[in-house]
Every structure is written in structure tokens, then in C-alpha cells.
């Protein structure tokens, strides 16, 4: 069967998307959770009993009157336990020496970012990677957590500090004051904002839980690193805060019946560079200190703190405050925290913890009964019942105490096993699904690769030997082998595997598809080898004819692909693309120099040096004089004539101008990890002090956008564009980004829904008119101008949409994008004749660079979720996701659509340009994805797999989906084009 390259590449990408979906399903296991449910007091189990009924059926009472959680952001373990702590935190050191405390080193899990860490502390669960992505939109924490439980049982919670808490737990606090961590350079005010409430709240008695989240230390770390001289004073300040709280609570303890508890902890550590997010020891290990008077009797010398998990805090706090343990918690109660209670109470607490863990395991593991931890817990529960029976019978001998101690140890062991098998659930890969997905992806990639020679030839047709699998023995053999492997894998695997849980027919269909593809690949390979054997020398000679540009394009593309094996290069991927685009511009300018300074080089070779230069100049000026004369004849506008007159110099300058634009774009949005905290122009503009400047800039940008894209549109869409851009300004003014020039005092800020919908209407209008033009071109068959106008209208509609959705300062990026595109088409590609493949690669590179210019990075945090709410009353899944995806990928997408416009405009020269472009685009996108999933599979136990590699994987896959859409557009236009060129 013969197919065009565009259709082939489109199909390949679509199938690859399916393959990748399967791969992702295996790579991101569904996390341990029981999202919607929350545990309640009535579900708390009674004490185990045998025969006689226990009188303890109600949930246990609280151990502490009130609790203060002092969370110091980025408090690293050695800031308290190390030399720094001894020097700068005298009070806490003294407390630890006196034995009034329990100190631990709590290990956080990656990603060590504040928000997931707060979740871990409050829910006791490990937020899976996919959790973070899924919860991007819903800010409120829906899982069972301590704050919710506290509110439910009528505890009054007061909160001061990082406003992430208020987003996570809205309406949970009786009193709160959030500070934003937006300005990293501020490290006094953020903390003063918290401390100023302290005196007042400590005097009062109308609260039960006080949460304080101090941000200053984190900011100092980001700015100057963990060894800065600012760290010491900050630690001392924190020490003073603790002293204040502690002395206030001690005086309260005297009146109250129950003691109070202070928890000092960090959410994550700080790397040697001062940042966090990864999983190095410095980032992961945080101190956890529990201070309360009952701990005092367990005095002793200052010993090494015990290593625990951060998730252990949640059950401990829950027990301490008399709340049910959050249902999704993986943590285990810290035995030291309840040691001062009676044996019966201690046993009861551990029973509750074990009961909760085994329930959680039952929801997440099929072979739950066989689990070692569950068996031990069951045994311990029985012993516990017997112990209670003895206890209630009044037995108070030494034996009972010893028995209790033994039982306690048994509980602890069971808890440990339960907890570890639960955390294993989180981190298990489904290798079989991953393999199947990867094979499909790989086969599609090889099909595209093998198709290059025939698809990029002048007739541009690819012969897919569909018949080959049907009548070959090899196909049936492969099918059989695959089926056998499937059966063996699925029967032997203990854990649940997604691909095995598919229906029987479906799995066999996929396996048959894989086998058929394999046959097709082999037969294509055979024909290629048969064809190319005699002409081996030809390829050698064609290699030496490669220009520097070709070499750069090849080296750059491959170099980028292989750079993705290093986590730093993924974090700083923008640097790679800026670097490559810069080099590309330099090579372009070299080509340009060659073209304009070395006309007819061959003829001049024989002339001596000095004479040649002079003659060349004469020659060139002759040539241009003649051209100028020609042009004067035509009637042109002044601008166009100026351009034509100085074509040479403008063309020579244009790569330089592009370079300059790229350099100017860089500091608008700092992205990546290492240099992200450098001040950037975008933050400066969006801060409220510079509203006037921003308004001016937005106005200028909107005018520029109109000037740059109106040229090729029809009159109607020009008008629509004008109104649309006006609407964009009104929208910005309504949401409070910019000011109206005629209205100095700001009126109340709205969501700008009317204005945004007004713009949407114009976007739709322009898009529909563009599509209509395209259809007209298809029906009329001869009208190629209608098609160009149609495509351009679609393009300008998309630009208008981007102008509406972008962050206000990113309009500058959009203007520069249009400017560079115009310079490239008007001067560079006119002067230098490149083929469709080269132009496609260059467009792709620029698209990638613009992905980062607009402020994206390879971490999830830079996704601009707010774009999904523009013009919507409330959150609606589908439009929000589509709009967010559009904004995120608008750089690559707009460049691809522009490529389509350009290539189909060139149609009179090469009718296959669109098809070739599409094919190259597909390969360019396919190559990194395919290599990347192999890399990720190899690196799946890497330290940074969750913090660096997984977000990148999601970005890559989504980009592939977007590209599949682009290829679909190419295919439709190509069909259209082929149809009209046939006539």
C-alpha cells in the first residue's frame, strides 16, 4: 500500500502516543491512597478482647492539652544537631541535653519541595509523583489529614506563616495570617510577619493547635547557600522563638491538667548549593524534635538522634491530640512519644496504628492476607486480647508487665513490616507494561527511520508492505512466541500488572500488531538493502557535500538527545536550546556572508588576491545596480522599496538581529534550577510597583502584534483581529494586570469573564473564517491564494488566543517570536535556498527555544495553571486542560503552524514541501521521546528519577501528543494541496 509521508508520519505518531500511554501506565503506578474517604471517630476500633468485654471501646483521649508545630522551612539536620546548632541554637541544645526532648532525624522523600512535604507531614502519606500532577488544579487537600480531623473534633487551630497552608487547608483555621514566599530576596519580613502574632496568641488560651511556618531560612539558603553568614543569626532568631513558646507553655502547663507539646521540624533540608527539590542527604534529612514535660523523666546523655520517616509524625501527632490516624498514613507511631503512658494505653495506641495500616494495605494489595506484616499483626492482636483479659481479671504481676513489653515489641515489628510493604507499593514499576509500550514506540520510530530515503525523495511516496505479515510464517511464529510469553508473564507475576489486566482479546490484538509491525519493518529493511547495494560509493561522496549547516543540525539534534541522560542537562535544557539556536544564527550569518561576498567563486579562483577583491566588489555592485534598476520600474511603497534597495545589507544583518532578539528574550524569564533565582525582567514587570510600565509595554506589544500579522489576512479577519486585541487589553485591565490609560484609580478587580469571552468569540471567528478559506481552496482546486490566506488566518487566530492567555509580560516573547519569524521568511530564507527538511529542523529548534523563552522548564511547577481559568466561571476540566496545554506548548506549536504556512506558501516551487516538512517534524519529535523512554527505563532507580526525570517524561509525552496534532494539520493541508496541484 502506498501512502504519502505526511499520512505515514501522522499515523506513526498517533500509534506512538498509544504506546507511550501504555508505557506511562506502567511507569507511574497508581499510588497508595484512599482519596475520598476520611476516617472518623466512630470507626476507631475497640480494644481487642477475648471473652470478657473491654470497657475501652471509645477512642482514646488526647495526651496533650495543646500542641505547637514550629515548622522551619529548609531546616537541615545539622543546623540543629551539628556544630552550627550548638553554636547558634543554645536554647534547644540545652533542652536536648537536659533530656526534656525527643530528637529524631526525619527523612523526607523526593520531591523535597515545600507543598508535598506539608502534605506528607499532615497526611502521613507519600505524595506519589502522579499525585502532584493530578492535584495541580485542586489546591485544597482532599485526602484525610490532621487539620481536617482537628477541625472535625472541634479543635481550634491557629496558623501563621507560608500561605501554602491556607491554600491546602482553607477554612480549617480559626485564625490565620499567610505570607507569600514570592520574593525570595526577603528574609526578615516573612518571619517578622509570623513572630509579631506570637506574643498575643501565647497569652491567650482559646486555641488548641498552633502552626507556625517560618520561611526566612529557606530564602537565605536560596540566596546565599547553607554556609552563609546569614544562617547563624537566623538560627538564633528561631531559637529565641522557640524559647518564647516554650516558656509560655511551661507557665500554661501549671494550670492545665495535661501537658502541652512542641514539635520543631523542617519540611526539607538544603543542598550544598542552597536549593532543594532533589534527594541528596542534605536535602532529605530534617530534624524532628518533640518537647514536652513528660519526656523529661527519660533523661540521659545527648545521644545520636534516631533515624525515622517524616511520615511518622502524622500518626504520632494524631495520637497525641486524640484524633483518628489519617486513613492514608504510612507512618508508624513513635514509641518514645507514648512511653510515659501506662502499658495498656501504649498497647491500645499501637493497635490503632496497626489496624489503620493493615486496612490501608487491604485496599491496595490483592494478596493482602499473605503479607508478613498482616500475619504478625493478627497474631499480636490475639495476644493483645489475651493480655487484656488477664489485665481485666486484676492480674498486676511482673509477668503481665513482661508480657506487655513483649507484645509491644511484636506490634512494633508488625508495624515496621506493614509500613515498609506499603511504601514498596508506591515505588514498584510495572515492567511488563513498560516493555510492551516501549516496543510499540520503538517499532514506530524505526518505521519512520527506514522510511526516510523513500519519503524524502522527490516522488515522496512510501510503500508499506502490508501483505508481508499475512503470508509469512515468521509473523505467525512471532505471534505464537509473544502469546506464550504473555501467558507465562501474567501467570507468574504476583503483583498486578496493567497489561495483564487488559481483556484477553485486547492484549492479543496489541501483541499481533507488534508482530505485524516487526514483519513490515524487516521487509522494508530488506528492500532497502537490496536497492542500495550497488550504489555504495554514491553515499560516501554525498557525505562530503554536507555543509556546515547540515553538520550543525545533525550534531545539535543528536547531541540534545543524548544530553538527556544527565539530570543537569534536563534541568538546564533551556541552555542547550539557546546555545544551539545561537550557533544556528551564526552559521546562517556565515552562509549569508558567503552568498553575498563570494559570487561566482569558481571563476575567480585563478585571479591573484588583490585584484580579486576589487573585481568582486565591482561585480557585486553591478549585479545590484541592475537589480535596483529593475525594481525601480515596479511601483512599490517606500518601505518595500527601501527593503529592496538595501536587500544585501538587511539580509546580512538579519541573523545578527535574530541573535540580539534571542539574547533580549533570555532575561525575561529565568528558568531551570541553578540560575532560576536570578532576578528576571518578568518578575520586575509583574510586581505591583511597575504597573504603569507593564501597561505601556502590553499596549505596545498588542499594537506590534497587529502590525506584524495583519498583512496576509483578509479584511474581515483584520477587523476581527483588531477588536480581539483591544479585547485582550480590556481583559488585562479587568483582571488588574494593567491600567486603563484614561482611568488612574483602579476600580474593583473582576475575573474578566465578559472580556475574555469577547476575545474568544473573535478567536473562533478568525479560525472559522480561516477553515472556510481552506475548504474553499479544496473545493475550487485552483485557488492557491485562498489556501494561503486561510492558513494565515488560522495562524493569526492562534496568536490572538495566545495573546489572551499568556502571562502579561510574556506578550513581549510573543512579539519577538513574530518578529523573528518574519525576519526569517522575508530575508533569510529568501536569500539562502534551503530545502524543506532543513527549514523544518530550524523551525523546530526555534520552537524549542521559545518553549523555554516563555518561562517553561522541565519541572512541573512552571506550568501556568491560571491560563485554564481565563473566561471560565468555575473549573471545567476539558477546557482548562486544553487551554493550559495550549499555553504551555504555544512556543513549539506556533512555530510549527508557521512552518506549515511557510511551506505551503512555497508550493509553486516544490509541491512535496509540506509532506517533507511533516515527515521531518515527526522524526524530530519521535527521536527524543524514543531515546528518552529507553534512558528513563535504564535510570529508573536513579536518585533523581522522581524529581528530574519523571517530569521531563511527562513533558516529552505531552509534546508528542501536541506534535501528533500538528502532523494531523500538515496531513490535511497536504491532501488539500496534492488535490489542487493534480488539476
Amino acid at each position, binding site marked *: 500500500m502506498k501512502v504519502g509521508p505526511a499520512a505515514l508520519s501522522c499515523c506513526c505518531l498517533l500509534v506512538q502516543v498509544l504506546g507511550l500511554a501504555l508505557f506511562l501506565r506502567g511507569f507511574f503506578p497508581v499510588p497508595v491512597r484512599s482519596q475520598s474517604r476520611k476516617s472518623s471517630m466512630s470507626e476507631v476500633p475497640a480494644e481487642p478482647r477475648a471473652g470478657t468485654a473491654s470497657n475501652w471501646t471509645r477512642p482514646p483521649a488526647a495526651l496533650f492539652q495543646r500542641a505547637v508545630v514550629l515548622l522551619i522551612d529548609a531546616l537541615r539536620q545539622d543546623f540543629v544537631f551539628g556544630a552550627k546548632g550548638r553554636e547558634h541554637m543554645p536554647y534547644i541544645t540545652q533542652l536536648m541535653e537536659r533530656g526534656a526532648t525527643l530528637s529524631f532525624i526525619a527523612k523526607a522523600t523526593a520531591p523535597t519541595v515545600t507543598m508535598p512535604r506539608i502534605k506528607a507531614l499532615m497526611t502521613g502519606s507519600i505524595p506519589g509523583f502522579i499525585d502532584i500532577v493530578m492535584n495541580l488544579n485542586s489546591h485544597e487537600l482532599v485526602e484525610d489529614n490532621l487539620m481536617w480531623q482537628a477541625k472535625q473534633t472541634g479543635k481550634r487551630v491557629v496558623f501563621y506563616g507560608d500561605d501554602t497552608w491556607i491554600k491546602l487547608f482553607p477554612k480549617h483555621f480559626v485564625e490565620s495570617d499567610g505570607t507569600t514566599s514570592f520574593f525570595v530576596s526577603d528574609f526578615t519580613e516573612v518571619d517578622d510577619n509570623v513572630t509579631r502574632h506570637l506574643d498575643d496568641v501565647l497569652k491567650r488560651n482559646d486555641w488548641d493547635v498552633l502552626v507556625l511556618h517560618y520561611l526566612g531560612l529557606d530564602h537565605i539558603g536560596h540566596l546565599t547557600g547553607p554556609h552563609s553568614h546569614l544562617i547563624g543569626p537566623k538560627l538564633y532568631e528561631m531559637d529565641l522563638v522557640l524559647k518564647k513558646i516554650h516558656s509560655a507553655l511551661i507557665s500554661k502547663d501549671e494550670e492545665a491538667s495535661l501537658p502541652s507539646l512542641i514539635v520543631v521540624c523542617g519540611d526539607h533540608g538544603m543542598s550544598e*548549593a542552597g536549593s532543594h527539590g532533589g534527594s541528596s542527604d542534605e536535602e532529605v534529612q530534617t530534624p524532628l524534635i518533640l518537647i514536652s514535660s513528660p519526656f523529661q523523666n527519660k533523661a540521659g546523655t545527648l545521644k545520636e538522634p534516631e533515624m525515622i520517616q517524616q511520615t511518622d509524625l502524622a500518626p504520632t501527632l494524631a495520637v497525641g491530640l486524640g484524633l483518628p490516624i489519617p486513613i492514608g498514613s504510612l507512618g508508624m507511631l513513635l514509641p518514645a512519644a507514648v512511653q510515659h503512658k501506662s502499658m495498656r494505653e501504649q498497647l491500645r495506641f499501637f493497635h490503632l496504628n496497626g489496624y489503620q495500616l493493615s486496612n490501608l494495605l487491604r485496599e491496595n494489595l490483592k494478596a493482602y492476607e499473605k503479607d508478613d506484616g498482616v500475619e504478625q499483626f493478627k497474631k499480636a492482636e490475639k495476644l493483645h486480647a489475651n493480655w487484656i483479659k488477664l489485665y481485666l481479671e486484676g492480674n498486676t504481676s511482673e509477668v503481665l508487665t513482661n508480657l506487655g513489653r513483649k507484645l509491644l515489641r511484636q506490634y512494633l515489628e508488625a508495624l515496621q513490616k506493614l509500613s515498609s510493604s506499603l511504601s514498596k507499593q508506591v515505588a514498584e514499576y510495572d515492567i511488563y507494561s513498560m516493555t510492551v509500550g516501549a516496543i510499540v514506540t520503538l517499532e514506530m520510530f524505526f518505521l519512520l527511520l527506514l522510511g526516510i530515503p523513500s519519503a524524502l525523495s522527490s516522488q515522496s511516496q512510501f510503500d508499506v508492505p502490508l501483505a508481508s505479515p499475512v503470508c509469512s510464517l515468521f509473523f505467525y511464529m512471532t505471534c505464537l512466541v509473544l502469546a506464550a510469553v504473555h501467558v507465562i508473564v501474567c501467570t507468574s507475576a504476583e503483583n498486578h500488572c496493567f497489561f495483564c489486566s487488559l481483556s484477553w482479546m485486547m492484549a492479543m490484538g496489541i501483541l499481533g500488531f507488534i508482530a505485524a509491525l516487526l514483519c513490515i519493518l524487516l521487509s522494508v529493511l530488506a528492500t532497502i538493502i537490496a536497492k542500495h547495494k550497488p550504489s555504495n560509493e554514491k553515499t560516501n561522496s554525498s557525505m562530503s557535500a554536507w555543509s556546515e549547516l547540515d553538520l550543525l543540525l545533525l550534531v545539535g539534534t543528536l547531541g540534545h538527545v543524548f544530553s538527556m541522560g544527565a539530570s*543537569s542537562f534536563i534541568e538546564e535544557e533551556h541552555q542547550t536550546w539557546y546555545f544551539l539556536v*545561537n550557533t544556528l544564527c551564526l552559521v546562517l550569518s556565515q552562509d549569508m*556572508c*558567503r552568498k553575498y561576498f563570494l559570487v561566482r567563486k569558481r571563476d575567480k579562483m585563478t585571479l*591573484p588576491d588583490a585584484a580579486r577583491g576589487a573585481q568582486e566588489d565591482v561585480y557585486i555592485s553591478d549585479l545590484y545596480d541592475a537589480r535596483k534598476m529593475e525594481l525601480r520600474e515596479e511601483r512599490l511603497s517606500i518601505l518595500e522599496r527601501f527593503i529592496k534597495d538595501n536587500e544585501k545589507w538587511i539580509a546580512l544583518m538579519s541573523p545578527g538581529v535574530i541573535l540580539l532578539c534571542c539574547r533580549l528574550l533570555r532575561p525575561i524569564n529565568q528558568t*531551570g534550577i541553578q540560575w532560576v533565582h536570578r532576578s528576571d525582567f518578568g518578575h520586575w514587570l509583574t510586581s505591583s510597583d511597575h504597573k504603569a510600565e507593564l501597561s505601556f509595554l502590553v499596549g505596545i506589544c498588542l499594537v506590534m502584534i497587529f502590525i506584524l500579522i495583519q498583512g496576509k489576512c483578509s479584511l474581515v479577519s483584520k477587523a476581527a483581529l483588531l477588536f480581539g486585541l483591544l479585547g485582550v487589553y480590556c481583559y488585562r485591565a479587568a483582571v488588574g494586570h494593567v491600567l486603563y490609560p484614561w482611568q488612574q484609580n483602579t476600580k474593583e478587580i473582576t475575573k474578566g469573564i465578559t472580556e475574555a469571552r469577547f476575545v474568544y468569540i473573535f478567536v473562533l471567528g478568525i479560525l472559522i473564517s480561516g477553515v472556510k478559506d481552506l475548504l474553499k481552496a479544496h473545493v475550487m482546486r485552483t485557488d492557491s491564494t485562498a489556501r494561503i490566506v486561510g492558513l494565515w488566518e488560522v495562524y493569526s487566530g492562534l496568536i490572538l488566543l495566545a495573546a489572551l492567555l499568556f502571562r502579561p509580560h510574556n506578550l513581549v516573547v510573543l512579539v519577538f517570536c513574530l518578529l523573528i519569524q518574519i525576519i526569517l521568511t522575508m530575508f533569510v530564507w529568501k536569500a539562502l535556498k534551503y530545502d524543506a527538511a532543513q527549514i523544518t529542523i530550524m523551525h523546530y529548534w526555534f520552537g524549542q527555544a521559545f518553549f523555554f523563552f516563555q518561562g517553561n522548564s522541565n519541572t512541573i511547577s512552571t506550568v501556568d495553571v491560571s491560563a485554564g481559568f481565563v473566561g471560565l466561571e468555575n473549573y471545567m476540566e476539558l477546557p482548562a486542560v486544553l487551554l493550559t496545554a495550549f499555553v504551555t506548548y504555544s512556543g513549539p506549536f506556533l512555530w510549527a503552524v508557521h512552518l506549515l504556512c511557510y511551506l505551503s506558501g512555497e508550493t509553486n516551487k516544490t509541491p512535496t514541501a509540506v509532506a517533507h516538512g511533516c515527515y521531518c517534524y515527526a522524526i524530530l519529535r519521535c527521536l527524543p521521546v524514543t531515546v528518552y523512554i529507553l534512558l528513563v527505563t535504564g535510570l529508573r532507580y536513579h536518585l533523581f528519577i522522581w524529581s528530574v526525570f519523571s517530569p521531563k517524561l511527562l513533558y516529552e509525552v505531552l509534546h508528542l501528543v501536541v506534535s501528533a496534532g500538528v502532523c494531523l494539520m500538515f496531513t490535511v493541508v497536504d491532501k488539500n494541496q496534492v488535490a489542487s496541484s493534480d488539476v
Partner: protein
Amino acid sequence: MMDEAELRRLSAGHILCGLAVVVSLGVPPFLFEDFSLLGSHLTWLCVCSACVITVNVLLLLTLKPNPSTKRSSFTHKVNKLYRTCLYFFVSCLLFHGIIVLYGAPLVESVGETFLFAVLLSSFTTSRCLCILGPNFHAWIRVFSKDGAMSVWDHSLQITTFCSIVGAWLGAFPIPLDWDRPWQVWPISCSLGATFGYVAGLLLAPFWIYWNRKRLTYKSR
């Protein structure tokens, strides 16, 4: 035809150029206190550029790779010298501009960037100026595809290309999070350029020798 004697002179010149780099590494420790390549990198950049330029000028005077018309007046010579210096300065500025366009900070560490540009200029432009003279058209000829007309032209092509590619590759380790002292701007780039330059110097005679059959130069 291939000129064996010319090639030998070229190799000698290359060895001298290479020695200039070695001298810049070996001699400063005796002159300055606590000199180290990484610690006092700026000093090294100055010293290395100066050495390389000196050797290039010496080579110009002794080997005379590009025998020009003998009877040139004194004013002509002064004019030529003036233009040479001007070209060199312009090339430093141009390199500085390109480096900034590549993302080097505009305001902070201007000194480092400029000295790096000077180093690159002394590896590339100063050689061109010595061998080809301040003749823009000759430059364009040499640096266009198959425009080389002598072993010297080829050597220029190769060393310039190698130095620039070396500097280009030297930028790659900068984003890595290894926190090594040589990742500091512009150390890795200047080291890369130096490695490239030395490699080019060593490579060029061999490459020309291997390809001597293919390279037939037109008689001058």
C-alpha cells in the same frame, strides 16, 4: 604541487606556537606568587594571550609565510600596523559581543568575558593577521569552502576551527551540578579553546601531510 620545505617550516612554526601555550603555563609560577591556572585564571588569560601573540609576531618576522611586495614605504607599513591593531581590537569586541549573545552576563564579570575574548582573538585573529595581513577579502577567501591556496591557509583554517569548536564544547560542562572549580565562567571555555588550539596546531601538519595528494595548490 606540495611543497615539502613549506610544510617543514609550517610544522616548526606550529611547534613554536604550541610552546607559547606551554610557557604561559610553566613560567608564571616563578614570576607571581601563588599563581594557579584555576585560582588566578585572569592572570593566566593575559599571560597566555600575550605569549601567543608574541610568538605569532616572531613567526611573521622570521618565517615570512606570506611574502608580500618588498618595496613598501614606511608610511604604508605604519598604516598596515595601525590597521592590524585596529582589526585585532575589533575582533576582540566582536568576540565579546558574540560571547554575550551566547548568554554570558552583560554587566557582572565583564573582565572575565573580555579577557576570554582576547584569548580567542589571539588564537584566531592574531594568526590570521600575521599570515594574511589586514586584508578582509583574503580572509573571506580562506574561510570559505575550498578557498585555501597554501599550507598556511589550511593551517589557519584548521587551528581557527579547532579553537572555536574547543571553546564551543567548553561551554557544555557549565550547567552540570558538579560544583567543580573549573566550571566557573570562563575557565572551562578558555581551557576548551586552548585544548582546541593546541590540538589544531598538532593536527594541521599531519592532516596536510596525509592529504597532500588531494591538495594541489595553484601556483602563486
